[in-house]
């Protein structure tokens, strides 16, 4: 009995160590980014000695910050709306209909999730340059649909499966047309699913990096890409200015995350495959 209790204690202690270490690192990273962006000459010591807001001014001179924020949100919202238009009908068909090749089709839809973005991203970027989509906001919107749509289909399917077919059959019997059934029965019943898929994709698309990085130019890039370019060219500008941009990105992503957690649970941020 005592041995069992000791074992439990050890597993509890290990559990606490992992959690504390992880939280310490995550909090540490976030806090140093924020503090550094407001600091002057913080080379040693626990806290900066002089605080300043000048790096934000600096970052604002280097980038058109309003434009960056605007593009980031425009891309995210456009991708969510277009993504839902494509994936809701598809998720409905995949959840309801039985047809030959369904399993194959489903795995084809999931393929963009298991092939790394850098692998299909380079040919995709080449095509974007060929068709003059690169460097334009519309191009950024189009390429980011690739990871969003499969994710949405996966999130939506279980929600549609949950809605019984009875209500649809009843509506059909009462003479409703297919379009009416969709608009008056199915969409209201699957609103939680649409909301979940939309919110999760919105949060996800703000941090999408690879594909935007490959095709975006000065005026069609999102904050996260600008942030990477700044951090990559370290030395060209003070690190505090990069951190100032990081804080702006952090604030946006965190706000979206906190709002989204009112509607979805953290485990839904990663998808489940049966």
């Amino acid at each position, binding site marked *: 009995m005592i041995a069992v209790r000791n074992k439990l204690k050890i*597993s509890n202690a290990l559990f606490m160590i992992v959690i504390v270490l992880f939280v310490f690192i995550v909090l540490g990273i976030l806090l140093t980014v924020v503090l550094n962006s407001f600091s002057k000459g913080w080379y040693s010591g626990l806290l900066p000695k002089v605080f300043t807001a000048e790096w934000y001014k600096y970052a604002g001179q280097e980038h058109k910050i309003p434009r960056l924020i605007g593009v980031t949100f425009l891309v995210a919202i456009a991708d969510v709306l277009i993504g839902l238009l494509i994936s809701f009908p*598809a998720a409905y068909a995949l959840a309801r209909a039985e047809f030959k090749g369904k399993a194959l089709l489903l795995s084809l839809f999931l393929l963009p999730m298991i092939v790394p973005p850098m692998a299909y991203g380079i040919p995709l970027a080449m095509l974007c340059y060929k068709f003059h989509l690169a460097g334009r906001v519309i191009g950024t919107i189009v390429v980011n649909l690739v990871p969003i749509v499969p994710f949405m289909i996966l999130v939506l399917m279980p929600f549609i499966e949950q809605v019984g077919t009875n209500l649809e059959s009843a509506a059909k019997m009462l003479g409703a047309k297919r379009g009416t059934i969709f608009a008056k029965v199915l969409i209201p019943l699957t609103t939680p699913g649409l909301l979940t898929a939309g919110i999760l994709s919105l949060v996800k698309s703000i941090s999408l990096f690879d594909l935007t990085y490959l095709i975006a130019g000065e005026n069609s890039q999102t904050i996260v890409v600008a942030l990477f370019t700044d951090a990559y060219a370290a030395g060209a500008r003070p690190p505090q200015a990069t951190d100032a941009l990081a804080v702006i990105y952090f604030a946006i992503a965190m706000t979206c995350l906190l709002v989204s957690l009112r509607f979805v649970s953290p485990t839904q941020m990663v998808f489940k495959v049966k």
Partner: protein
Amino acid sequence: MKGRSRNGALLLLIPAIVFLVLLFIYPFGYGLYTSLTKADGSFTFANYIRFFTNERDLRTIGVTLGIAVPVTLLAVGIAVPLCYHMRRGVPGEKIISFFFIVPVTLGTVLISEGMLTFMGPNGWLNQLIMALHLAQKPVQFTHNYAGVAISVGLQGFPYAFLMLLGYISGINPDLEKASQMLGANKWQTFWKVLFPLMVPGIAISFCLNFVMAFSVYPSAVLLGQPSGPQRVIALAAYQWAFEKFNFNAASAISMIMAAIELLVIAVVLAWRSKLYKGASIVGKG
């Protein structure tokens, strides 16, 4: 009637199929075609031969696997016991999950950028290590293998954790009780009952983690030595495409990346079907 509804369903799939063909299958096919041609369009294997005979390019495979495999194994290896511990909930679970979801939402770029300061020679982490007298001089966490591995792990571990937590808390607790009633101890219950039921979840989270770690790009550039020891395969592809403007060579590397990726996934899924055999359908609570 049945035929009509089936056609209707297929109609609904059209937008998604158009999307898939235009934005995924066509680019992928185009990449395959480009990788097998010269700049003038004639057929050649030269792009692949160049990759496999160029030592500097070829070693990127080893470098990338050397980061992706240990980090993924470690992430899943820590996540499994952690989720097992949390399977029936622990106090503060909401806050814990929140801290796990934060790095997932913020993405690699911010994490890597922040690590440069936090884990730098004068950063808080090294200040703490020095204060606790764990090391004589600051430990180097940035611009080396450790930096890349930590950054990839910080990203991958929460992913594995959240995915497995959903999986493991879905296993019917009656199975565990039954096993204990039949005289199995905790260890036996875990290995003989719970673990086999978790195998599909472990396989999936391993695959997805591996995909993320294998296409590591921003963290290798920001936290490694991208010109030397941490020149990952994604970086090689990027350099061929956008620095040397040789899209044929870049496409070949893209195809090789995808092939390695799918190979690893095939191995994991084979492992899964060997161990699993459909047991957890009854186990799902």
